[in-house]
């Protein structure tokens, strides 16, 4: 193994580069107005070199991993470095025109000059609460084209020589539902990059341009080498795994997501050939979100501590067929890409785990996120409101432990709105928030449990919409483990309950009606017969598995032994 030029300088300076990205992130989070950015941290910040190589990223949400690479590439393709002046900044969001993820994610990219030349770019991407379009929040699952999803921004200058283009800010915010909030957040994004640029120049002065350049090269080499050695440790071959979406947003057949991982020495090809056709609804996965999902999955499965920079991207090649759900053509709708992203991560995990020793694998997670939206009239505030929520489910079981109960998986990791905050804010009441017994796949180790959230509407005319999935397709088990249950959304649960479609949209509720969402758990690992009795006994004692389900999955004899164990 060739040595790095200076491993100590690399460690010291890479630390400081990451600190700059993190500083930019904390400024963005601190100074933004909207809860999406501030409380849910749905934003990321990054540094690039003049060639567009990702140097460092502070990612708070994995669907942003590498998400600004496309924007920087587009800028470099469209503009000469020589034409960029200090104080310029670019804005973009479009998945087809500017490497965007979906329209609410707006990126600001700022060139950083040193000694008269562009040396670096500072970038940040943030999820704005609304960018216009047909539906409040701009993330409807049922839009049929990107033109319904909000304002489209190709790469354009939003600041020139340090002056923000107020006309452009007016144009953008005029197309959004809360212009004041949007303008504040855009200015904050521009400001965060300026701050990053200053810190980067300061570091360049302190360390010396050459030393810093050498440390960056070392950092990318180190990361590439580290991932390459993880890949090289896998046996060469092709490993295929398939996960299905319930439908494409408009009912009909299940839609396959197929991932074939081809390992050849130190390179890894992830091929999605065989995946289903472009969706009619908004669950298409545009290029930038596909890449982010793949980078996330590789990092999670092979090396969770891998640093997010160009070095982790270089050894990975992605293959997809144009016109499929993972490679949509304009103007296919993409606003609800998160549903597909999560399922695709499940496919990549499943493929990669086959290349690892079985004891390192994990059964499938829920690979889904059930988003709901409730809107209506707020009598006290005398205004309309929108309450968005997204629910996770169970994670997959490992060879040596049960899967985690009730968590978000893969590219989503947002927090819930507390019940008391919900009830203080909206004319809604929560009837139950609980784990769902028997929702996980049984096994030597069981999957994690899904969760239930049951909401009562207090005002007539409240509108409920869902953007869910996995109502038909469960999370499979592995190595003899059983599959999980599925997600259900029920209107007025009880004898007269009505089970709703996963993409039920615009249902108008009367006061007193309720909707219950129960999400699926994770898949099990290993045959149920191998489950240690104390764990089965604990599940029965805690009511996480009912006796009936346990007798079905583990057999009456095992259940009797487990219960006897608990008494003794």
């Amino acid at each position, binding site marked *: 193994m060739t040595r790095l030029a200076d491993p100590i300088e690399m460690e010291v300076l890479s630390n400081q580069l990451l600190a700059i990205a993190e500083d930019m992130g904390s400024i963005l989070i*601190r100074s933004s107005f909207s809860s999406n950015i501030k*409380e849910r941290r749905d934003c990321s910040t990054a540094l690039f070199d003049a060639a567009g190589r990702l140097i460092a990223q502070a990612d708070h949400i994995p669907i942003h991993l590498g998400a600004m690479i496309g924007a920087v590439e587009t800028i470099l393709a469209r503009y000469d470095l020589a034409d960029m002046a200090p104080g310029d900044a670019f804005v973009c969001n479009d998945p087809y025109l500017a490497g965007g993820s979906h329209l609410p994610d707006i990126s600001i990219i700022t060139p950083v000059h040193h000694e008269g030349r562009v040396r670096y770019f500072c970038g940040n991407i943030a999820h704005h609460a609304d960018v216009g379009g047909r539906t409040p929040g701009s993330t409807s699952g049922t839009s049929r084209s990107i033109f319904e999803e909000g304002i489209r921004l190709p790469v354009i200058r939003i600041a020139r020589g340090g002056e923000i283009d107020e006309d452009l800010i007016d144009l953008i915010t005029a197309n959004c539902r809360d212009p004041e909030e949007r303008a504040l957040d855009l200015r904050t994004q521009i400001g965060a990059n300026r701050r990053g640029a200053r810190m980067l120049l300061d570091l360049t002065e302190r360390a010396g341009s050459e030393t810093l350049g050498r440390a960056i090269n070392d950092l990318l080499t180190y990361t590439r080498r*580290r991932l390459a050695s993880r890949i090289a440790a896998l046996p060469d071959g092709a490993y295929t795994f398939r996960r299905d979406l319930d439908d494409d947003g408009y009912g009909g057949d299940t839609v396959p997501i197929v991932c074939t991982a081809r390992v050849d020495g130190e390179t890894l090809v992830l091929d999605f050939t065989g995946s289903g056709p472009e969706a009619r609804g908004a669950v298409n996965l545009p290029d930038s979100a596909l890449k982010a999902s793949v980078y996330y999955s590789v990092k999670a499965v092979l090396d969770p501590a891998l640093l997010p920079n160009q070095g982790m991207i270089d050894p990975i090649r992605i293959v997809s067929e144009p016109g499929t759900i993972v490679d949509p053509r304009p103007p296919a709708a993409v606003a609800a890409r998160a549903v597909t992203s999560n399922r695709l991560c499940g496919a990549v995990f499943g493929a990669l785990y086959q290349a690892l020793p079985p004891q390192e694998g994990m059964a499938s997670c829920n690979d889904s996120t059930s988003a709901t939206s409730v809107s209506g009239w707020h009598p006290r505030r005398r205004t309309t409101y929108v309450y968005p929520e997204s629910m996770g489910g169970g994670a997959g079981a490992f060879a040596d432990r049960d899967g985690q109960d009730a*968590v978000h998986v893969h590219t989503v990791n947002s927090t819930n709105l507390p019940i008391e*905050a919900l009830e203080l804010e909206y004319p809604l009441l929560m009837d139950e928030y609980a784990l769902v017994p028997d929702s996980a796949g049984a096994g030597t180790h069981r999957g994690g449990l899904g969760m239930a959230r049951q909401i009562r509407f207090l005002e007539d005319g409240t509108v409920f919409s869902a953007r869910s999935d996995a109502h038909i397709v469960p999370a499979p088990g592995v190595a003899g483990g059983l599959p999980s249950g599925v997600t259900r959304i029920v209107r007025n649960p009880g004898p007269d309950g009505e089970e709703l479609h996963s993409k039920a949209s615009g249902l108008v509720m009367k006061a007193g009606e309720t909707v219950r969402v129960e999400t699926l758990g994770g898949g099990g690992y290993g045959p149920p017969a191998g489950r240690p009795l104390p764990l089965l006994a604990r599940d029965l004692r805690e009511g996480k598995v009912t006796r009936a389900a346990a007798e079905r999955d583990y057999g009456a004899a095992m259940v009797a032994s487990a219960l006897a164990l608990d008494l003794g």
Partner: protein
Amino acid sequence: MIRIGVDVGGTFTDFVLAGADEATLHFHKTPSTPHDPSEAIETGLRHLLEAHGVDAAEVAYVGHGTTVATNIVIERRGARTGLITTRGFRDVLELGRQARPSIYDYRVERAPPLVPRDRRVEVDERVGPDGTVLVPLDEASLATAVAALKAAGVEAVAILFLHSYRMGAHEEAARRAVEAAMPGVFVSASAEILPEFREYERVSTTVVNAFVGPRMQRYLDRLKGRIAAIGIPVEPYTIHSNGGLMTAEAVAIAPVRTCVSGPAAGVVGAAEVCRLAGFPNLVTFDVGGTSTDVSLVKDGVPAYTGDRMVAGYPVKTPMIDIAVIGAGGGSIAMVDDAGALKVGPQSAGATPGPAAYGNGGTEATITDANLVLGRLAPATLLGGRMTLDAEAARRAVMDNVATPLGLSLEEAAHGIIRIANANMSRAIRSVSVERGYDLAEFSLCAYGGAGPVHAAEVAMQCHLPQVVIPREPGTLCARGMLLTDLSTDTVRSHFADADEASWQTILALFAEMTAEGGAWLDRDNVASADRSFRRVADARHRGQNFELKVDCDGLGPADFAAFVERFHEAHRREYGYAIAGRGIEFVSCRVQAIGAVARAPQAEIAGGPSLEAAITGRRPIYVDAAAGWQEATVYRREALPIGVPVAGVAVIDEMSSTTLVLPGQTATLDRYGNLIVRIK
């Protein structure tokens, strides 16, 4: 009047004894006794009194910082606890906020709930967000729930009913039912522990409180017994997470408030020592064996935070905002399989400890690197009570770092230190620069055993103009116990659009809470002249989900406009801008009641006659690649004269620590005995 401060750490229990003039300070360390921390406290107190000829009856004050509550949580050795909740919500404790703890690593799990599902029971009752009863408390279901917990043999019970911060009667009824059915069981109701909205954080805090309650009570009883047995006529105070003192009775009700007791004492100690020394703006820098604690002090007041994770469980009590990173003397340096040198967070701990401890450790640690570079000497720890094996340190650095990277021994050791310093610097920036402060206006206050040896380089990296090193920095947390006051915090959630009318309600709540705080101070016999109250409102713009703390001291019924102005000012300071037209909401109000503890002002010290008289020797020290090895003068801190600068390269030794002064820097003892290092 003799006053004693005690800080119980994982390895050592530290003591500071202050004489009547507060200038005579005696420092002492004794090995901790984790099976019963009060044992080491008794041993140390007896030693101190005997060694300095003090009559136990003269001791007027004992303040102590303890990790007992934290350790109970970390080791999950607390009481068998049950939880009673509103019907439909027993799983709130386990669901948390549904985010997973590590984005990329699925083997990192959330800490398991301290109350398992079969000991979480539900009761029919429901209160709405405005405090109205939607479902009356059903006595029969309450009786069933209590009977189930009794049958499960619980020793402690936590109670969480939704919106109990608005209407606590149902929780109180449940408490009475538990106490009637299970006399002697420790009960915590959520509205009593944390009357604030957001049910998960409230129940988590309440459950932690119940879980640690019984053992904490037994510990305090033992401690009181031992102190009385020595003949000390006063009961010990405990410092809680916000840096104030609580009586043993108050701790017994709300032990959760002591979860970051020890580190908080260090910060209040640093703030007070440095304020007097003329440095009101600080970054505190406490480097111990396994971690470094960093916090910010502005105008003499520490930064506070409302919540923090304790061993993976959210605990929401007012506490000093301390950032912790896994870099301390015992942090291990290793070369990974792709050729990078990483330092920490793995630590060799107290056993085996660094290779230089000679207890079988073979891995290279930060302490070993400092020894290789001559920055620590083989016989300087604890005044020579502990010796280090320099040869073992050299071997560890050579084998684990220098050889694999093809570096010289010095380059490797200095590389370890540079990386550790870079990690520490990043923590410093995270509490300061990232929150909008300019470090040029701050000083670094270095303490903990290993802080002063790293401070000079870290201050240079962060552009901090000077370093303040208090006397015996290894025991500053114990000294902090002597420099703080009694305090308690109360909070009430109250939601309202901010206007003239709701402002009057807020003021009425302040008055009510001030009366409560006053009653608390009555119980501790605090004279009215020694009392003060701080009032803060949590407020936000409509449409936001995060609150700003707005100082309401000095505002009366006619001052609503002034409140609005203060809100905008706070918004500007915190976020960089203000939005004049947008509506404001009240969310919570808080009152802190403070009772000043009688103490003499810090007094000046005499100091030694001359620098020459303080010199104990010379030794070569490795500065950096450019300056190489240089001959450093070694001084004994107790013998330094006041106001005479020591020029670098120099090393200043004392019982609990070693200070490094680099070329171009000077270190000067001020009249209170603090060492001030001027950075270039």
